[in-house]
């Protein structure tokens, strides 16, 4: 048995405290979704389920949520298709301009949002293209694209080309090879890329603010409302999205961890 020492406890205790610190505002946001508040939501006025049961009593909150879901869905779909193609092309084929393509994909991730937002808005303005849903979707696809490429690329790199060769040896045509072998093997990577793209789009504020015109998304609603006080209904939506996502991630993570644990045991 190991000797007990305070030194050994420092790191675990620190880590738990650090995580607890990260969770404070999350817990606060969820708790205040149950606040029986009228205007503003800064002081505790008592517990109620009303805000959860009647989120759309604030139609502006619900509209903003609807816009965010629509923008997130469409942007994710387009960015995932374009990004997956790019990732496959980059890993599987050798060509001279690869370094240049890598740099071109890296740059959008290294550019501050305010520059991306102002740049696109300036372009749309110069072209007299009115900002709205379409311009927001164009912007979101643009900044999600590189993140999709990075995520899918990691998956393509772990893929053994021998499997595709085997398919070709068995007289599968290129179409069949892709849909029966490559795509199913890449799917976990594509799904995580899509989830990442959706969460980036759903939570984006700065780029959206520059390119949305009259359209309000959920983050934009909160930013504008922050001046007068954010209604508890916004907390309800954020909390619901959070709880659903965290549940999904936990199920996936614990599933994977249990599988790994079994593999460790069987060794």
């Amino acid at each position, binding site marked *: 048995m190991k000797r007990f020492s305070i030194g050994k406890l420092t790191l675990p205790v620190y880590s738990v405290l*650090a995580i607890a610190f*990260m969770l404070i505002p999350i817990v606060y946001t969820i708790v205040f979704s149950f606040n029986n508040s009228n205007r503003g939501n800064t002081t505790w006025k008592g517990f109620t389920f009303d805000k959860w049961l009647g989120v759309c009593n604030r139609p502006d909150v619900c509209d903003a949520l609807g816009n965010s879901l629509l923008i997130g869905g469409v942007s994710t779909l387009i960015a995932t298709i374009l990004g997956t193609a790019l990732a496959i092309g980059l890993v599987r084929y050798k060509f001279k301009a690869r370094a240049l393509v890598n*740099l071109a994909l890296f740059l959008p991730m290294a550019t501050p949002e305010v*520059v991306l937002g102002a740049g696109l808005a300036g372009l749309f303005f110069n072209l007299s293209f009115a900002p709205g849903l379409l311009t927001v979707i164009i912007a979101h696809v643009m900044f999600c694209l590189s993140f999709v490429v990075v995520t899918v690329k990691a998956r393509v790199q772990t893929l053994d080309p021998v499997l595709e060769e085997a398919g070709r040896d068995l007289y599968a045509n290129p179409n069949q090879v892709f849909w029966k072998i490559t795509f199913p093997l890449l799917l976990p990577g594509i799904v995580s890329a899509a989830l990442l793209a959706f969460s980036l789009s759903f939570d984006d*504020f700065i780029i959206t603010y520059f390119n949305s015109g009259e359209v309000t998304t959920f983050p934009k609603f909160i930013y504008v409302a922050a001046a007068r006080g954010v209604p508890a209904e916004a907390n309800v939506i954020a909390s619901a999205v959070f709880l659903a996502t965290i549940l999904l991630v936990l199920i996936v993570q614990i599933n994977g*961890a249990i599988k790994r644990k079994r593999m460790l045991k069987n060794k």
Partner: protein
Amino acid sequence: MAFAAFGNSSATEHKGPTKSGGIVLALLMPGLIYLGLFFFTPLFSLIITSLEAPAETGGIGEYVYAFNVENYSYVVQNYLPQIIRSFYYATVATVAALLISYPLAYFIGVKLRNRPLLKSLMLTLVIAPFFISFLLRTIAWKSIFSDGGAVMQLVYNLGLMKPSEHFLGSDFAVIFGLTYNFIPFMTLPLYTTLERFDVRLLEAGADLYANPYKVFTKVTLPITTPGIISGTLLVFIPIAGDYVNASRDFLGSAKTSMIGTMVESDFLQNWDYPSASALSVLLMAVIVILVATYVRSAGTEDLL
């Protein structure tokens, strides 16, 4: 690790089919054309707009191209405090995020190596903030640190601050919010490098009579440098361009305005597109230079 995922190509590559240029083009072109249209064209358009001058016959918000370099000296003169503040906030918050994240990433990546369930749980909690609006989380801190709140009452009673002083609206509050919001972006790349870190090297160091401090600076730190670099870039760049935390409706005040604050007000409220563009181009230029020198001096050329 987003940044390292690019570049270091040849090492892990498979020898796939290399012929068929047609397929490559079909795979790459749609995405690249998209980036060309909606990333590179806007950057170019920013540079053009940053050189415009007010149209003589036009009204507010109308400008014509005039190679007007004075826009740059104008924004440097007028927005110098915001420029300095942005990079000051970004530096302090990045260092703070690194110091807070490193032990945490070390614990998850090294100490929990043989506890997959606990490790997954901790990792999930590290990324948990991503799943709830960062604006609402920042507003939560604002409420927690409001003058009448319990936290500030404690601070005042302990004499840490005078009752006449406020936490909200101070440099410290903005740096606090920025640090908080970007900690996961630091923890994740650090975790990725620490997870692959061979702990036997620590024993080797100890066997050679190095004390724990020396083992850390001579072994652990150099090996985890790639993680530190990608984490630093992932945190520093967005912070330098952020203006939400510094906004007076969030944790800041009129005295904490940043570059982003000025770009937003010039662009969306004052319709002063040339100034907003010049400031954006400056920010972008400084960041490109910083990234290039940082990467070069740290010796990880293959990062880009």
